[in-house]
């Protein structure tokens, strides 16, 4: 119910504090406090006061604030509710059912792959193999196992098919016609923002505002903006305050500062414990061999390794994606979406509760193109652990929404709906034409959305896009961009007379300049 | 671990164990030490200091004030005295007070004669002050006198008050003054030199309940004082000195029987006095 009651509030507070207590921050801070209290300047009288101020000066208070901010973001979705767990994951019953069915399909195809190739889902590696794997850890890309029989579990178009068939059993078709587009593929009465709303949401993008990605381009001889921007960025970094960094990112980050800014927004600072955890995950990879590994391997080969932007990062990608698959902390994000990780039982222990395990440990089964989520980050971080933790955070906060069915406004379904409604309201002619020639816009745009444009835009432009995703903490910008691209190429698109032709027009997006496009779509 | 130490305030706890005394002394020692060799490592120094305090060999060659400062220091000193001069006892030599003092001064340069004389009074029942004394007698008398100094003083006050009361006017009720009036101990005048044991005991018992310095266990006092109807002060002291219970109460010297044995003291003692580590298996104080 609206207006969080004290009860819900206190619940939230409890949750946050509990989570924080588990972090090293808690112990470190206590120690720092103790150290402070030892100082001469302290008197029992004003101990509390002076202690607080001392912690503030020594920067702890800021660290704490960031941590809390981060926790809030995560806990926000999980407010105290009387709803049964599955309803908390996803309120719409038919949505849940659909997701369930889709997951079952994935399980089936995984299982059949196992039986066909007669390989187990997971097995312990014999010591020799472990040694061997360890020895070529940094060049996983070079060894070429035969993966011809492995095929991606699913590709964007498969997933789109399912979305297209989503229907609300309770909706009244004849009536809906009057209220909702019947042009588009997404036939769900989901609430989508209008351009007006988007304009206010993304006001920082307006033409009046200088933007990284336009005003810092080398074409402009004296890059005043760029240097100003960088100065400001440095100050933001010194402030070590996530919300500040987030605000900053709305206008895009200078390439040189992006890594630091993003890390600050995401609250990722790789300390030695994280480093150790990374090693721990690595050892897990070494110990067990998963079927998923082959799929990951295949996907890297099919995508990044074949991409003239990303092929150089192939080895790096193998590493962090394998490690990702072993990271159980990713499971957390299943708590608040319709998705549920695949389950299985240790061999020979079928049906025994205490021997049930999730598969893969991260619960995430990669689809064709999954690799690209990580690939683009290689331009920002080259130290594997740092790259990994940023990727994990990005995934659990954003990308995760892009391949599960949910009514969440950030969910892929809503994003598709938003794209279609934008196109229909503001480019009706174009939409109608494309639909006429059998080139449903979403058919083309879907893979963009599902991959957050990774591997479609030029690498620099993509990073500028993700700046905004982080800055506005929203994926809606993806739908806006997709819409923008269509209306930008409208003249060519209006000439096409087939799906293939339309696709051809939109096949190469690497030449597009992000910011002007967005501005065009939102404010012109 | 008995939760006792948690029921008192921090200050009380520190006072109870004379922690501040030791810390202060430690620092002053450190500063002094620093004069000779400035490159001293404080932590190391302090650690050594407290280790030696713990082992009880910290009083050697220290000034009297320090030696007297805490019960632990006193016992430590008594022990050193015994260890160093056992031979005297073994050889069976008898010495007089002055000589004993010179021995003590070897261990503590400013050791006052007064205390030695008090000890002698005990051994010699307060007369023929320059007689010779056996080491053992002196040792135990000394232990009594030195360890319970404050107690004995007050006890003697009580004793005299009772005396004067019973002798002179009829006000029999005696309120022992715990306050230490400066000056010489009251002279015990002539006449039938004894008091009624029970009365004396009652007074002393009252004293013990409130006394802030260490005092002999009450039941030992009872045992001694109840043995005879009347008791003289020095008879009382002599009895205390000879009482094995006192020795074990102070708990620093071996029983009288083995006092002159040659077994290395450190072994038996240390085995007797190693601090029990705070055992994790002890019950919660709840």
């Amino acid at each position, binding site marked *: *119910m609206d207006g969080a009651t004290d009860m819900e509030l206190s619940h939230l507070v409890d949750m946050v504090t509990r989570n924080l207590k588990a972090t090293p921050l808690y112990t470190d801070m206590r120690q720092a406090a103790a150290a402070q209290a030892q100082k001469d300047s302290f008197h029992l009288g004003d101990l509390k006061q002076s202690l607080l101020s001392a912690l503030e000066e020594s920067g702890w208070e800021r660290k704490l604030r960031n941590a809390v901010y981060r926790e809030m973001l995560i806990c926000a979705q999980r407010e105290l509710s009387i709803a049964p767990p599955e309803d908390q994951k996803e309120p719409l019953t038919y949505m849940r059912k659909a997701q369930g069915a889709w997951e079952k399909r994935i*399980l089936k195809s995984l299982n059949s792959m196992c039986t066909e190739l007669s390989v*187990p889902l997971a097995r312990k590696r014999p010591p020799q193999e472990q040694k061997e794997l360890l020895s070529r850890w940094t060049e996983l890309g070079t060894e070429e196992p035969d993966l011809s029989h492995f095929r991606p579990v699913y590709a964007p178009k498969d997933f789109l098919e399912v979305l297209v068939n989503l229907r609300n059993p309770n*909706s009244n078709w004849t*009536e809906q016609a009057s209220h*909702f587009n019947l042009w588009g593929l997404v036939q769900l009465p989901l609430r989508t923002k209008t351009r007006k709303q988007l304009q206010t949401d993304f006001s920082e993008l307006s033409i009046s505002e200088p933007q990284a990605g336009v005003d810092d381009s080398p074409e402009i001889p004296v890059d005043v903006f760029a240097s100003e921007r960088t100065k400001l960025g440095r100050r933001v970094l010194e402030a070590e305050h996530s919300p500040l960094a987030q605000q900053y990112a709305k206008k895009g980050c200078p390439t040189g500062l992006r890594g630091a800014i993003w890390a600050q927004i995401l609250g990722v600072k790789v300390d030695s414990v994280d480093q150790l955890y990374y090693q721990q995950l690595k050892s897990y990879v070494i110990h067990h061999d998963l079927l998923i590994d082959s799929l990951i391997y295949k996907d890297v080969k099919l995508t990044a390794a074949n991409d003239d932007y990303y092929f150089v990062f192939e080895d790096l990608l193998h590493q962090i994606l394998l490690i990702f698959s072993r990271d159980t902390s990713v499971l957390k994000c299943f708590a608040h979406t319709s998705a549920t990780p695949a389950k299985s039982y240790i061999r020979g222990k079928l049906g025994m509760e205490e021997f049930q395990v999730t598969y893969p440990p991260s619960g995430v089964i990669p689809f064709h193109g999954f690799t690209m989520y990580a690939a683009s980050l290689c331009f920002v971080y080259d130290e594997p652990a740092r790259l990994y933790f940023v990727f994990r955070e990005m995934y659990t906060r954003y990308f995760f929404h892009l391949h599960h069915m949910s009514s969440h406004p950030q969910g892929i379904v809503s994003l598709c709906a938003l794209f279609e409604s934008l196109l229909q309201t503001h480019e009706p002619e174009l939409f109608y034409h494309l639909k006429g020639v059998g080139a449903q816009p979403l058919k083309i745009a879907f893979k963009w959305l599902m991959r957050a444009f990774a591997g479609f835009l030029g690498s620099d432009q993509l990073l500028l896009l993700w700046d905004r995703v982080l800055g506005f903490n929203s994926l809606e910008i993806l739908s806006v961009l997709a819409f923008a691209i269509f209306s930008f190429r409208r003249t060519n698109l209006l000439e096409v007379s087939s799906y293939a032709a339309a696709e051809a027009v939109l096949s190469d997006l690497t030449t597009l300049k992000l910011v002007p496009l967005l501005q065009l779509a939102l404010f012109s | 671990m008995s939760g006792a130490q948690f029921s008192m305030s921090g200050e009380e706890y520190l006072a109870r164990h004379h922690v501040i005394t030791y810390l202060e002394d430690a620092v002053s020692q450190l500063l002094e030490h620093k004069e000779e060799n400035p490159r001293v490592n404080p932590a190391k120094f302090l650690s050594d200091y407290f280790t030696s305090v713990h082992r009880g060999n910290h009083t050697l060659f220290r000034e009297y004030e320090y030696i007297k400062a805490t019960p632990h220091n006193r016992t430590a000193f008594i022990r050193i005295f015994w260890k160093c001069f056992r031979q005297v006892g073994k050889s069976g030599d008898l010495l007089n007070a002055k000589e004993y003092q010179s021995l003590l001064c070897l261990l503590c340069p400013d050791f006052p004669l007064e205390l030695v004389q008090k000890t002698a009074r005990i051994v010699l029942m307060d007369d023929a002050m320059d007689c010779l004394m056996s080491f053992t007698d002196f040792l135990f008398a000394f232990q009594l006198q030195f360890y319970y100094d404050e107690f004995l003083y007050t006890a003697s006050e009580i004793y005299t008050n009772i005396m004067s009361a019973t002798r002179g006017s009829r006000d029999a009720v005696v309120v022992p003054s715990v306050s230490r009036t400066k000056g010489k101990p009251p002279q015990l005048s002539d006449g039938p030199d004894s008091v009624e044991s029970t009365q004396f005991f009652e007074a002393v018992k009252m004293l013990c309940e409130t006394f802030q310095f260490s005092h002999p266990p009450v039941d030992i006092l009872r045992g001694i004082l109840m043995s005879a109807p009347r008791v003289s002060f020095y008879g009382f002291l002599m009895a205390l000195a000879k009482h094995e219970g006192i020795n074990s109460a102070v708990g620093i010297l071996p029983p009288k029987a083995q006092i002159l044995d040659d077994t290395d003291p450190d072994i038996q003692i240390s085995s007797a006095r190693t601090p029990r580590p705070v055992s994790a298996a002890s019950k919660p104080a709840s």
Partner: protein
Amino acid sequence: MTGKPLVCSIRNPHPITIGDPRAEFSSGCAVVDVTFPSTKSVDIGEITFKNNYTALLSIKLKVREENEKEEEEPAESDGETTLTWVTGLKNVQLMPDPHCEDRAQSYYRIKREQLLTPPDNVLSVRLVLQQPSPVWLSFGLDDIKFYSPKDETSELMLSELVNGDMPADDEAMNDIRKRVKENKDIPPVEEISTSLQQMWALSETARINQTEASLGRFDVDGSYDINLLSYT
């Protein structure tokens, strides 16, 4: 909210039609009647339900007036005359946009504080549902539950607990005590008891001190050998 929901009978939503009931036209309005079987009226602490495409909700309560005299015999005379309808809620919006999925199937909890009049001495409740949008085939509310302000269950629970499996009369207990005391090969019960309670307390502290945190393991004692995924 702890405690069991109040027993009551809930009728299915009854659409309000205008003119000929057989006409296609639906007024977008329906009522759900709830009656509490117990002849004595109830106090309501809160109402919970799962929305099912209802846009607006109003609540009417049938309550017995305070001035009502108790000795008056129940049943029939209890009916129409002395009982009055009061409004508990008026057009509370359950769906921000009637045409859209938003919160169409969400759970709701309405606390007594949120009602316009304190829901005491309630005999029956009428939920008035509205759905102006023709987009939906049907609308209603699912698993509606009423709770009383405080659950009185707990106290008696405790009492029955404390002397759970004890014989009712004391002397029975006493000679048990006696018998056990006399039995020489049973050591003093109190001692055992204290010791046992100590152990029990320890095990409890241990339990409380266990963490939820995870090391990130996915194997079960060292093994993660899996052949196939399970469909359930």
